[in-house]
């Protein structure tokens, strides 16, 4: 015990001795080639240079050509070139008063946006300007209303207004739906698309998205009423190979192989209703460990016995 105590007394906290580094051959060093993160809703078409504060000025864009911006490697084939369009920064949050009359905003202009299929509406209220996704019959001079109050009797909404899901009657066509309250319009952005409110259960509302999937969302998630603009987009063919190149799509080959069994109509039972929780799961901390040595051919060389 005393010897242990004496031994511990001799201990002191010092800076660890950093081993002197020699120039070693890189052939056996661990160099993990980074891989691009594909999937997870990330697109490799362009990077938008967002400034600190929200602005209505069209933003500069760098085209990626299918490359991952972190690793520089090709992540997706078939993307590249095309006309460069400036990005209109859409304000996805439709914030309205939770009591009293709804907030009124005026539509100034409908703008065709090169970065998306739907049209964009320039909207003004007070001394602020912002962009939102334009709905089907929106025109300059319209007044659109936003409210986050959920009344007992559902509201009879006009196109372009934004209300929480719980305030709208069943069967309403909606777009730019939040899946978590406060997130901003997340679901349904493409031209001519809309989600439908199917039924209400407790404090949740079940909607049918354009992909025929059913989502169960909290009733205080905001959404915009109506169908998105540019409805004819889905029916217009691209027209020519040159037009496809102007859209930023490179020539594609070998995409559709008849005999592999992967293509063709699928007949599946519909998936169950996806329930979106109120809270996002916390991201786990990732610690990157390092090994500066080299891995030997077999255990004998590794542990030198």
């Amino acid at each position: 015990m005393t010897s242990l105590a004496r031994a511990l007394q001799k201990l002191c906290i010092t800076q660890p001795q950093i081993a002197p580094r020699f120039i070693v051959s890189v052939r056996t060093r661990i160099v993990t080639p980074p891989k691009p993160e594909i999937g997870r809703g990330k697109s490799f078409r362009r990077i938008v240079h967002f400034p600190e504060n929200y602005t209505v000025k069209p933003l500069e864009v760098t085209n990626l050509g299918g490359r991952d911006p972190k690793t520089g490697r090709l992540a997706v084939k078939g993307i590249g070139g095309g006309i460069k369009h400036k990005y209109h920064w859409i304000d996805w949050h439709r914030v309205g008063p939770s009591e009293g009359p709804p907030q009124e905003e005026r539509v100034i202009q409908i703008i065709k946006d090169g970065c998306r299929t739907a049209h964009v509406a320039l909207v003004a209220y007070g001394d602020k300007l912002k962009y939102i996704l334009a709905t089907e019959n929106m025109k300059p001079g319209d007044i659109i209303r936003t409210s986050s109050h959920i009344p007992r009797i559902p509201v009879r909404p006009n196109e372009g207004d934004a209300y929480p899901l719980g305030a709208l009657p069943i069967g309403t066509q909606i777009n730019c739906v939040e899946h978590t309250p406060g997130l901003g319009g997340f679901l349904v952005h493409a031209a001519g698309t809309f989600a439908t409110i199917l039924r209400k259960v407790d404090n949740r509302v079940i909607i049918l998205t354009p992909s025929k999937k059913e989502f169960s969302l909290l009733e205080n998630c905001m959404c915009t009423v109506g169908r998105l603009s540019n409805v004819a987009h889905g029916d217009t063919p691209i027209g020519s190979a040159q037009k496809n190149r102007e859209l930023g799509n490179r020539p594609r080959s070998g995409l559709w192989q008849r005999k592999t069994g992967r293509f063709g109509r699928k007949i599946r039972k519909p998936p169950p209703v996806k329930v979106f929780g109120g809270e996002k799961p916390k991201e786990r901390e990732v610690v990157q460990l390092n090994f500066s040595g080299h891995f030997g051919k077999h255990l004998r060389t590794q542990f030198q016995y």
Partner: protein
Amino acid sequence: MRPSPHLCKQHLGWHFKKLWATQSARKIRDAGIEQKLLEKGVPVVKAEDILWEKRPLEKIEVVGLKPKPVVFDHTHPNWHDKTILTYRDNNVLLKGLQQAKILTNTVELKQGLPDFTLKSTKKIDRRVKEIILTSHVFDAEQKILPKVKDPERPAWNFPRVYGITQPRVIKLLLNNLLQLIENSSDLEVVKQRYVLDDTHFSYNFEKSSDLIQFELTGDTLLTSTKPLPAVTEEPTESFQLPDIHPIKPTITLNKENIYEVRGIYPISLKFAKSHPHTIFVPHVETEVKNLYEEPVTEAQIFGRSLLKTFTVAASYAKEKYGNDVTVLPKPVVVQCVHTNGRFFHFGIFQLNTLDLEGGVKNVWFQTGRLPLFETCCYKVGRPVLEGYNNEVIQYLDAFYNNV
């Protein structure tokens, strides 16, 4: 077949290397210990904070390096906490003329200019056509002009055009037309007039607790020995200002924290020809733009000319009658000619009051946008001027001779 020892050989090191590539990134599961300890009041500190001593970075002032660039934040000498809303040369208001009227407390009593007698200008029409051709086609400047884009063929790059830049076109046109009018006008009238270039105006005021400043730089001003008489004596209290609810009239004015509040009228009133007569506002399409980069509308152009004329009239009135005047003893009248080289827009502004929230209102008269000509360019190698409109020179002449 008996597998030889060599076939079974595997390089373990390469297997471990591949595995290490993914396994080296360890995801740490949060057991909630830290939260539980913090709830009980036990302080939780990172090991690195105790073990490694933190050395603060010593700042070394090196003499002789180049000076630091000016940072535009709260350390700037002109920083003020209160935001100012400014309107400069190349801004346009979102709602154009309607918004400008609310800001400057102005009403339009009738469409078009007040009763104006337009003289026939047959004698000088030929000379005007020559001037148009000189300023648009014959001048020697060859600078690269903005790209031509066809919205229907977005991928097509047109060959670049070289020619006279728009600021120069407007400058040449206005200078030559003014000179022509001076030559063809009565000597007594010409003796009263004086032309100034690159004049700066600045007028600031408070409206509903917002500090607003209008600034004009580099415009042509025509001054006179006598101020223009009031155009109309009609009482303006009963007229209503336009309503742009839910938009505030201060939208699209620049918000700035680094500013200098100035009231500038460029000419000293001791000078005989210091009374403002007409202002010539150039509209250079590459510089006058919306923040959201959509084309400038006609209403926005009208609003711009109203605000510019107001700035001239208001800065003159402030200089003449002092800072605290509200309703002016004698209304100040300023004329305005707004051009982009082809389209002309004429306006007359009567400043009745500097109190922009009161009942007495200021008055604005304007024409629409009149084209001076349809096309003026080289066609099949020959300089051609088509669709000449003599209304514009008649108005210009009438404006110059207005006493």
